[in-house]
């Protein structure tokens, strides 16, 4: 494999990987405030992209995307209030099953609202054929949009969680719910907020990736599996590590595709998931003892 080809595969790996990272960050936000894994996380990306595609018929692109993100954010909050909050005291098994049911319902609703066809947003700058050439590798300007938006999402979240009162309140809730309540933090709204936040960033990620990978009603579940793999690889709840893990998985997939049949691409993430779960369920970046304490 020559150098330009390596750059080519590397770039496509990083592009997809950054989307996996955003899905994983979405998982982490909800996991750290509630302790549950939201199996419907992948559906948020598809809802966002589909809504933007419909709105784009009548509105300019930027407004369509902004509205789609807002709609999905509100939907995320509604889902929490209607379906998750009443089952607050339920066992983990019950909550998992509820989010699985949600992912099916959302997917089927999308099938009936839109259709089973493949849709896509237009390229944000240029057209499907415009390319940028770096080191002999050609790529679409949309790749820059994907990487830029992912960086802004991760950076924005870091600032939000570290420096704003609301972000700190959410972190306090994740850390120790009882203590946070004693400090006057409304823990229930923090949980709702975490669903809204992860729905919102999911919708935005779904929009920027739509011109490249296109959007179909049933693409949420594979995205969720990959996002979960990344979240586990980085260690559940650790968003910065999730970014690194996302890029790793994206690169791994890209190079597997370059060497083997593309039919194996889907299996890569699952094999990685099973291996990590069995060998190191606390993630790659956590020291073993700390991981054991956290898992307990």
């Amino acid at each position, binding site marked *: 494999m020559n150098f330009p080809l390596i750059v080519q595969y590397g770039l496509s790996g990083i592009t997809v990987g950054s989307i996996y990272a955003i899905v994983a960050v979405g998982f982490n936000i909800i996991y750290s405030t*509630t*302790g*549950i*894994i939201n199996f419907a996380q992948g559906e948020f990306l598809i809802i966002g992209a589909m809504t933007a595609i419909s709105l784009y018929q009548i509105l300019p692109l930027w407004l369509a995307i902004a509205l789609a993100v807002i709609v999905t954010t509100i939907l995320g909050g509604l889902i929490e209030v209607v*379906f998750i909050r*009443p*089952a*607050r*005291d*339920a*066992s*983990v*098994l*019950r*909550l*998992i*099953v*509820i989010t*699985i*049911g*949600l*992912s*099916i*319902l959302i*997917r*089927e*609703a999308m099938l*009936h609202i839109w259709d089973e066809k493949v849709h896509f947003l237009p390229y944000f700058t240029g057209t499907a054929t415009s390319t940028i050439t770096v080191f002999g590798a050609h790529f679409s300007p949309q790749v820059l949009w994907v990487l830029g938006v992912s960086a802004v999402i991760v950076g924005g979240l870091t600032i939000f969680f570290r420096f704003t009162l609301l972000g700190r309140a959410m972190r306090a809730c994740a850390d*120790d*719910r*009882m203590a946070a*309540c004693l400090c006057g933090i409304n*823990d229930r709204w923090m949980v709702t907020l975490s669903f809204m936040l992860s729905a919102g960033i999911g919708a935005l990620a779904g929009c920027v990736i739509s011109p490249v990978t296109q959007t179909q009603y049933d693409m949420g*579940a594979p995205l969720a*599996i990959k996002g*979960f793999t990344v979240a*586990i690889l980085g260690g559940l709840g650790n968003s910065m590590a999730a970014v690194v893990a996302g890029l790793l998985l994206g690169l791994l997939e890209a190079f597997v595709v370059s060497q083997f049949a593309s*039919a194996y691409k*889907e*299996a890569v993430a*699952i*094999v990685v*998931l*099973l291996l990590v*779960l*069995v060998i190191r*369920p606390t993630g790659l970046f956590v020291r073993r003892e700390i991981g054991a304490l956290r898992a307990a």
Partner: protein
Amino acid sequence: MMRLRRYWPVAASALAVIVLQAALSLTGATYYMTQITMSAYYALVVIGLCLLMGYAGQASLGHAGFFAIGGYTVAYMTTVNLLAYHDTGLIRALHWLGLVVQWRNLYGAEVLSFSPWPAFLAALVLTGLIAFLIGLPVIRLKGHYLAMATLGFGLIVYRVVLGTKGLGQADGLSNVPPFHLIPGLEVNGRSSFRIENYYIAWVTVLVAMVLAINLVNSRVGRALRSIHQSEEAAHSLGVNTYRYKLAVFVLSALFAAVGGALMTHYNGSIGPSEATVMKSVRYVAIVAVGGMANLWGAMLAAVLLNFLSLRGVFGTYDDAVFGAILILIMLFAPQGLLRVPKWHAVAALGRASSRALHKVVRGRTTYGGRPHG
């Protein structure tokens, strides 16, 4: 006396099965029996999953994978053509043992392939082995991790059957011959065999129910329930939790494989749609409707819901119905639709006490407990 009381529903079900057959035959609606038979085979998967999820408390989102492994194994072995190798020593030996048969398929071509019985046994051995090897590492995982790992296993099975040429890819395998269980009794989907197969399926289901009931009420069953309540407590009382969980995982996979193998002979074919994650989720939904730790509830829900689904009652909302069922049951009736008040009170008491114990031991609350309590 207690022992006999446990089995009266078996006798009642057997009677109901006979009455239903008579009623269908009298009204001339025997075509319903085809879907009832198929629903009964799906019920086998659900009974196994009920043991795993309801009694041992371990979620599996990959049981369609085991059903598919069972079905695809018998389909492959009974349709693969070994005619080109018929002169080799191995095939001759198999022939002499009666393990392979020569027959004519639908297109009139000569086929030399394995007989159904060895194929059936091979399907059980293969499924048991795969379940054991997968379960060995995976069953140590808990909660989300176990759910995701079994989901991953299910997805891999789906990808494999969809991507392998020898397994027919998207078309699946067809032309599977009937299964002669004993002379004069065969698993066969033709309409002249309808009543016979209705009874074959139901006898299989009732035998599975008796096995499951015996298991649940034995030492093993009590161990499993103790694992469900509190794995740490069970472990500290000397229950080898890992071994019990692994055993019930393999057993439930075998139930699914039996269902898959018999259904494949009955339909004469199997396709990748049997291995989808949605099928696995369906089985979970059905166990939930039945009330998780309720074998009779699970069996009834399996037959009823699959029958309605196979008749096309839900139309294009088929998957959505099962998704909605999952959410509604988990939100409003986590003990299932068939409520047994006595059992209820005991379960509630157990949960309340374990919750209180948790709070005392851990000194902090998690999402699983009441934040303000």
